[in-house]
């Protein structure tokens, strides 16, 4: 008897193992499937609740499943062209568009929604959504870094309007464990604001690195003196804790930091980015645009449901509600004429910063640039190495890695 059971179990096991991975065939789409849209996302609950409510109201015929994925980008690489496992759309930042477009799993949005219907969107959000001349994302909201200050230590009239004023403030206030200003000075996403403000770049539009450009080197040289007045370790947790605990008077951080510091009782102010004295341009951080991308498979198999959901996501009221619920800066220009939006200090500060912000490069080459630029910044700001030499070395490494990608 035991032997029979063991045989049975072994057979089941072998059969089930051999059947693994056999579900890759493209079956015809049933009516129920055609009216179900799965959207992967990585957003907080407040954003998703608003989106879900709007989609239910605006697309009553479509069942929209919003599924949170912790490792969305890697999961998409694995299943992006598998009809049984891939989502129909995903709600994510624009910076991975290039990777997925090259993998040929994305459908250009303009093949579903005519280009002229996207005219109400801010120009730089559409620029962010464009890769090799095609728009692959329907923008919903965007984020930029902000200049944040603690009013307890830095009154409104002491907020620096230029970087030299900021440096003078740092020199005066940095002592005894207190810092005039802190930022993640050796993290590319944060340092990019200084580099862009000097007219330099981490990755140029044509996909070549710009680390040893004169303007990038000038930015790194200039930025170094600010880094010297900040703590040695400036990763996310340390910088945010210093600001949150009142040990740093000001910082450059994302809008996501504001609710946390407000909860701790801080009277936090949001100011325009200081203007760099050398170039007369404000610190110009990267802009990340959050929006909907459509997978090619879904566009082919469920065209009507996909279009309905996209059109619902273009609703002006959705973007206004997201701004009110979660401080998301609307991608549609016409939202800013609404009183509720115009009165929101954080959203309007992001709008102002966005005037000079640079869309984060969406090219696949950027994947290697984060690491190389991080090493360059660490060499310059933390190990005190020569800027020009380090930049030349980093440029060479970046070129090698980009070559190795192909």
């Amino acid at each position, binding site marked *: 008897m035991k032997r029979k059971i*063991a045989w049975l*179990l*072994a057979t089941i*096991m*072998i059969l089930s*193992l051999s059947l693994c991975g056999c579900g890759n065939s493209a079956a015809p789409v049933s009516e129920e499937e055609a009216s179900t849209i799965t959207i992967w996302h990585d957003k907080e609950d407040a954003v998703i609740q608003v989106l879900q409510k709007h989609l239910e109201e605006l697309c009553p015929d479509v069942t929209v499943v919003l599924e949170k994925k912790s490792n969305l980008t890697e999961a998409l690489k694995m299943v992006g*062209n598998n009809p049984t496992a891939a989502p129909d759309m995903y709600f994510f930042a624009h910076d991975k568009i290039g*990777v997925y477009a*090259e*993998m*040929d*799993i994305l459908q250009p949005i303009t093949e579903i929604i005519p280009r002229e219907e996207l005219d109400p969107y801010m120009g730089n959000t559409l620029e962010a959504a464009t890769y090799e001349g095609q728009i692959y994302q329907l923008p919903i909201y965007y984020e930029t870094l902000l200049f944040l200050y603690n009013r307890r230590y830095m009154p409104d009239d002491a907020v620096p309007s230029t970087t030299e004023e900021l440096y003078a403030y740092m020199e005066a206030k940095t002592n005894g464990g207190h810092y005039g200003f802190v930022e*993640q000075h*050796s*993290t590319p*996403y944060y340092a990019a604001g200084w580099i862009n403000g000097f007219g330099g770049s981490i990755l140029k539009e044509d996909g070549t690195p710009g680390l040893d450009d004169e303007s990038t080197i000038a930015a790194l040289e200039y930025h170094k003196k600010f880094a010297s007045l900040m*703590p*040695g*370790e400036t*990763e*996310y*947790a*340390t910088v945010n*804790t*210093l600001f949150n605990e009142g*040990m740093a008077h000001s910082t450059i951080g994302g809008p996501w930091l504001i609710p946390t510091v407000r909860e701790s009782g801080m009277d936090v102010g949001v100011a325009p980015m200081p203007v760099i004295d050398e170039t007369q341009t404000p610190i110009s951080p990267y802009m990340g645009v959050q929006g909907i991308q459509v997978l090619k498979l879904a566009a082919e198999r469920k065209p009507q449901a996909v279009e309905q959901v996209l059109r619902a996501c273009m609703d002006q009221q959705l973007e206004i509600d997201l701004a009110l619920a979660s401080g998301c800066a609307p991608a549609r220009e016409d939202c800013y004429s609404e009183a509720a939006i115009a009165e929101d200090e954080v959203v309007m500060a992001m709008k102002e910063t966005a005037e000079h912000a640079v869309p984060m490069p969406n090219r*696949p080459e950027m*994947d*290697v640039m*984060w*690491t190389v630029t*991080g*090493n360059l*910044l*660490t060499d310059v700001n*933390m*190990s005190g190495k020569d800027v020009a030499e380090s930049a030349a070395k980093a440029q060479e490494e970046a070129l*090698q*890695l980009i070559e*190795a*990608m*192909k």
Partner: protein
Amino acid sequence: MTNNGTNKENCKRKDALISYLWAGPSLILIALIVVFPILYTAYISFTNMNVYHWNNYEFVGLHNYVNALLVFDSGFLSALLMTIFWTLVNMVLQLVIAFVLASLLNIKKLRLRNVYKTLLIFPWAMPGYVSILLWKTGMFNSQFGLLNQFLAKLGKEPVRWLGTNTMAFISCTVVNLWLALPFMITIIDGALQSLDKSYYENALLEGATWTQRTRYITVPMIKPIIAPSVVITIFTTFKQFDVIYLLTQQVGSKTGSSLHTILTYAYENAFITNNYGYSSAVSIIIFALLILFTILGERGGKGEKA
């Protein structure tokens, strides 16, 4: 007589076949979990699978291996030397400290023995990732870490514990010891408990000192018992990635140290490219290196025994 012999042989064959049959499901599982990924990686290493050729990848022969050799430059060689040094230092410290602690746990009439054992095993119960980040923020952080809080109380300047290669090496070694010691202590403790006490009684009667007893009885007797665990730990230490990467090189929280083992070096110079063919070729070369070291290690071991 001949018939008997043939029957016996047939029986043996049948037994062997049945044994393989019963082991079949497990062998299939091992093949799927261990052998298949290695073979698949080897297959991918001969193709141009990357983001630009995701669905239309082709066989490119040894092209990736030629490119992979570029990774094995002077930077890789210094990373390899660093890896060997890292393995050596960590193994010596692990064995010495684990032996001392296990010996202390075996002192006769030791009170609260189980409490000490539980405390010593505790780091093993925590996920490595959590332990490493706790060490990074809780102990080594220059602003809020416990070590600098102590220094501040003593009126000393704060230290950047992960800021230079030497400091980072020491700090990474401490964390690696914290993570690895429970395993080694458990193994040595078990080995010590299995020793025949009569050898020690005789040695005591002969007037042997503690050092002599350790050198001539304990160490030679536990050596064959702990040998497999030591070999496993050598390879775990050799291919260590988490401790060094999470403490010093995570994107967004680099510390200024440029300490690299072969795996962190390969990660920064190959794996981030999203070129699966190229990264697979680098992985296969590292795999071959590890196999080579295993063979050399085994030969060394056999030579010692002879």
